[in-house]
């Protein structure tokens, strides 16, 4: 099973989105862009992020690193559309996310792999994956179960895992399911939060190989939030978040 077949099998109903994805893969237009982004939890309160600018391109694996408290998790929530910046804009394909339908953005355009995976433990692997596919509202030309099975194979899990409950899986296995879920609706951006945090080295390499393949072979923009130097070294770019400079307050 090659990644190309996966790509072919997922038919986006939104022709524009498909065209955009193709275009971003070819050109240097950033998929996601931080434009003078600042963030504080309360209005006028302490700034967790201050005046950040960065462009995320398709086909690249970008690592966001930095010490604790540098705002990595905040940046992740901004990029994933869970929240909006206090100042500045997060642009997805040139559109301000603050004004866009972020539920739609989350369900179709970005696949987030949370640090704690956030799979539903009562559901099986296949059900978790299909839930995301259903939520995206996209149409698929093959049975969803079949696509889920291919994705499971792609993240190198045995097919019998398909009907296993999340509860019965190990951390590494759950990680792979989370990746499979993030890929299921073919988003343009893959966002991973500490994807290798609690995995052994061999598994880390395995996961990183998957991410690189997604970026290089399928033209997705892969963003990894991590504090692991190995992961940073394995990525195409590293976006270093500095410890917040105090005089910004």
């Amino acid at each position, binding site marked *: 099973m090659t990644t190309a077949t996966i790509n072919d099998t997922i038919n986006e109903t939104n022709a524009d989105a498909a065209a955009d994805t193709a275009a971003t893969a070819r050109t240097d237009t950033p998929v996601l862009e931080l434009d003078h982004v600042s963030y504080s939890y309360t209005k006028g309160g302490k700034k967790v992020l201050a005046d950040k600018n960065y462009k995320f391109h398709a086909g690249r694996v970008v690592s966001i690193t930095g010490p604790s408290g540098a705002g990595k998790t905040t940046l992740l929530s901004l990029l994933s559309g869970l929240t909006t910046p206090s100042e500045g804009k997060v642009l997805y394909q040139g559109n301000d996310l603050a004004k866009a339908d972020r539920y739609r953005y989350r369900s179709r355009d970005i696949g987030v792999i949370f640090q704690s995976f956030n799979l539903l*433990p009562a559901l099986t692997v296949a059900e978790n994956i299909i839930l995301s596919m259903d939520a995206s509202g996209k149409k698929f030309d093959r049975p969803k179960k079949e696509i889920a099975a291919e994705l499971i194979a792609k993240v190198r899990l045995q097919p019998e895992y398909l009907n296993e409950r999340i509860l019965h899986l190990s951390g590494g296995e759950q990680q792979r399911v989370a990746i499979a879920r993030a890929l299921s609706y073919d988003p343009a951006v893959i966002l991973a939060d500490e994807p290798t945090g609690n995995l052994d080295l061999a598994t880390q390499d395995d996961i990183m190989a998957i991410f690189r393949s997604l970026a290089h072979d399928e033209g997705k923009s892969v963003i990894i939030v991590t504090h692991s130097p190995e992961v940073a070294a394995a990525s195409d770019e590293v976006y270093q978040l500095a410890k917040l400079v105090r005089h910004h307050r």
Partner: protein
Amino acid sequence: MFVLKNAWKTVTRNKGRNILIVIIVAIIAAAATIGLSIRNAADNARETGLASTTVTATISADRSKLMEQARESSSSSSSSSDSSSSSSDSAPDFSAMRAAMESATLSLADYQKYEKASSVPVSSYYSESTGVSGTDSFQPVESTSSNSANSSSSSSSDSSSSSGDSNSSGQPGQGGPGGDGQGGGDRGGMMMTSGDFTLTGFSSDTAVAKAQNGTFTMTSGEVFGYGSDDNGKVIISKALADFNDLEVGDTITVTNPSDTSKTYTLTICGIYENTTSSNTNAMGPMGGTSQDADNAIYTSVSTLKSLGLDSTTTANDDDDNTTTQLTYTYVFDNADDYETFASDVKKAGLADTYTVQSADVENYESSLVPLDNLAKFALTLLIVVLAVGAVVLIVLNLFNIRERKYEVGVLTAIGVKKAKVAAQFAIELLIVTMCGIALGVAGGAAASVPVSNQLLAAQVSSQETQAASQQEQFGRGADMGGAPGANSGSSDSSGSSSDSSSSDSSSSNSSTSNSSTSGNSAPSAPGGDQGGMRGGFNRAVDYVSTINATVNLKVVGQLILIGLGLTLVSALVGIIFVMRYEPLQILADRS
């Protein structure tokens, strides 16, 4: 679609919890079903019970109001004699009150005026009764020979004889005159003036059929006609005929009770036998109201008129001792018409001192007492069950949602809109509660008929026990009906109608208080003046003892509405919870 699918999946996934909710909802729904069906059936019984049957009604004076007026105006002394005969009345106010009551009696013309004022179809019949005395050749059936031609002494002689028949007949005769007699429909008001016989004129066959002494059959001859051609024709009871050795075609002569020189000659055109036995006790109030059922002479209104004994004539003359009691009865197709008529006559100028009453309706109402109690009980049950059900559902749902906070986070994080999540939760609850309601309705439908009949039986028996204990209490309370009446009557003269009559009777007749009061209070009870208590135990009420509490579509519809309401209320908790959830929280939910 996504929402529905997800909701269904979640429902099937969490079987344990949902079965629990289904059971709770089913119990609530079953109780609610029974409650609703009982109420429904009670409503139906009330609506349909009298809808198809004819209802008779009478207009009677509201005596307590009359009494008040009389008390205010009267200061006159005792001796004036009044229509209801007893000249030996010592309490001054009584006569004034009786006078007031007598003047309050409506005339035939009044009755007919009100009939015309009705906006609903109404038919009517009436009868007029007066007392006549016998002659040497024509004597009433009596066990003693103390018969007298003088009416003013007849009641006292009756009472002194103190034999069952004549005694019991005497008092109701006096008790009858006022509104009570009319209030009781045909039963009460036969006798104004005690003669030896009751001469009753009827307006039509219907009136005859509703004769106070009950139905009768002709043993020979035929019933008189109502035209003037048949004037002078009467029918008499078989006992009376046998007693006087009379046959059809014979003539009899009776005298005016107050003036023995006035004689009336009547021709017997038929001899009847009461279908109901002449045992007055069995007849209760009805038997008691005539001198003796056997001594009733029936004729047409036209005959009475030709003799100058009809109510219009006697009301106009000054002879207080001859008064004809008019019993005018309206007939309606159903109870609704009766209600309309009651309001129509008020508009037509019927004074406040009169009330329109229907023994049929009142009997029916009192037969519904257990059903009403049951309906009240059902309403209480319904409210309690629904309140408890709502609380239980809300609490369960609250815990449910809190448990599923993580799920909300995951769903919103992967881009499911909060409204959809909330809808999903509501639909899940709806699916579960609808299953519960379906089960509950099925169970309730199966149980409602036996359960409601059981409950109704309990209500009926408690009603009967109550009535019985009242009767026991009053019966033991010594000379009974007379006791409350006579006491109050003599002490402050505020006695109500039956009081004055019973005080009369006890003054003139001390020996028969028990039988007299039972005869007395019974007719007065339907009159309504006395309130429900006496009526409650004296009337043999045939309580509605079965209820058709089957579950129909209306009940099911109401239940589904209630179920929807409950579900929405309890789902609201979940909806509020979901809507307040911030997707960002998912980063903190690391379960």
